[in-house]
């Protein structure tokens, strides 16, 4: 019952399953483009303020726990490996392997969020809040407040994307366990994993900007 072979259904507007799959992939890449548009504007904003307040940004970045940021980089990279293996396993008909890999991805996603929230909590204890609520006797300059406002906004938005990606992957996990996806029907799993990789790529750029350039 559980492992009856699921097959993709050809929609009438497509000539073949291959064409349908290509359209789905292309659509996903266009969606990812809209995400890049969103983050691209924020990266441009960061560029402008970094040049404006070079020294304040450097000293503010020293207040971020570099080990936490680096650990989170390794956590997300590893979660991407598990996600890639999960999509591969679904395509090769190994449902149990796919489920285990997705569980690994979800666990690492959860660990990422936990570490991020731990860092936020530590900042709050030191009066480092976003926007007008920023209070830090050590980092009194205006530039430091701008740095942390960007930090909360960009890492917060990224965190929401982690939650979104985890939700999509959790649904995939549930559907795989119900036997809804397999070698003949795996596009949804592949596209959800694609989204997770984009979340990884964005963090790969956030890490040096907020932790390394001190």
């Amino acid at each position: 019952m559980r492992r009856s072979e699921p097959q993709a259904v050809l929609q009438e507007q497509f000539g073949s399953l291959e064409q349908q799959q290509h359209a789905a992939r292309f659509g996903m890449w266009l969606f990812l483009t809209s995400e890049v548009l969103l983050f691209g504007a924020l990266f441009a904003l960061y560029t402008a303020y970094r040049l404006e307040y070079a020294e304040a940004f450097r000293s503010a970045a020293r207040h971020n726990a570099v080990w936490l940021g680096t650990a989170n980089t390794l956590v997300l990279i590893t979660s991407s490996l598990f996600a890639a293996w999960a999509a591969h396993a679904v395509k090769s008909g190994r449902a149990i392997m796919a489920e285990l890999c997705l569980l690994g991805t979800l666990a690492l996603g959860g660990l990422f969020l936990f570490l991020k929230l731990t860092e936020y909590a530590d900042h709050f204890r030191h009066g480092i809040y976003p926007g007008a609520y920023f209070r830090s006797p050590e980092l009194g300059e205006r530039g430091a407040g701008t740095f942390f406002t960007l930090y909360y906004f960009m890492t917060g938005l990224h965190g929401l994307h982690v939650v979104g990606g985890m939700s999509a992957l959790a649904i995939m996990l549930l559907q795989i366990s119900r036997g809804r996806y397999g070698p003949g029907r795996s596009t949804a799993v592949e596209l959800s994993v694609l989204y997770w990789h984009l979340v990884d790529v964005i963090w790969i750029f956030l890490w040096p900007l907020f932790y390394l350039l001190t």
Partner: protein
Amino acid sequence: MSDPPRASSYLWAWLTLVLLTGISFGASRLHLGRWAALVALAIACVKGGVVLTVFMHLYRAPFVLRFVAILNIAWVALLCAGVAADVAAR
């Protein structure tokens, strides 16, 4: 894109990413001054490239998908370069 990539290629990509993370971290401790940002961003670009080509399958994707991905990177780079030039020229 018909035949799926081998699972071992993902492992190699992961090892490369871990290694590059280590190199980037090490380079940040060397205090390279004005070169620090360039080195860190260059390494981040290589890491992003590894994720895009191997994990996201662009190395054997149809032209149109590669085209979209390359334009994505190009537009963000152009946007940031334009903003940087504007602020620096004030």
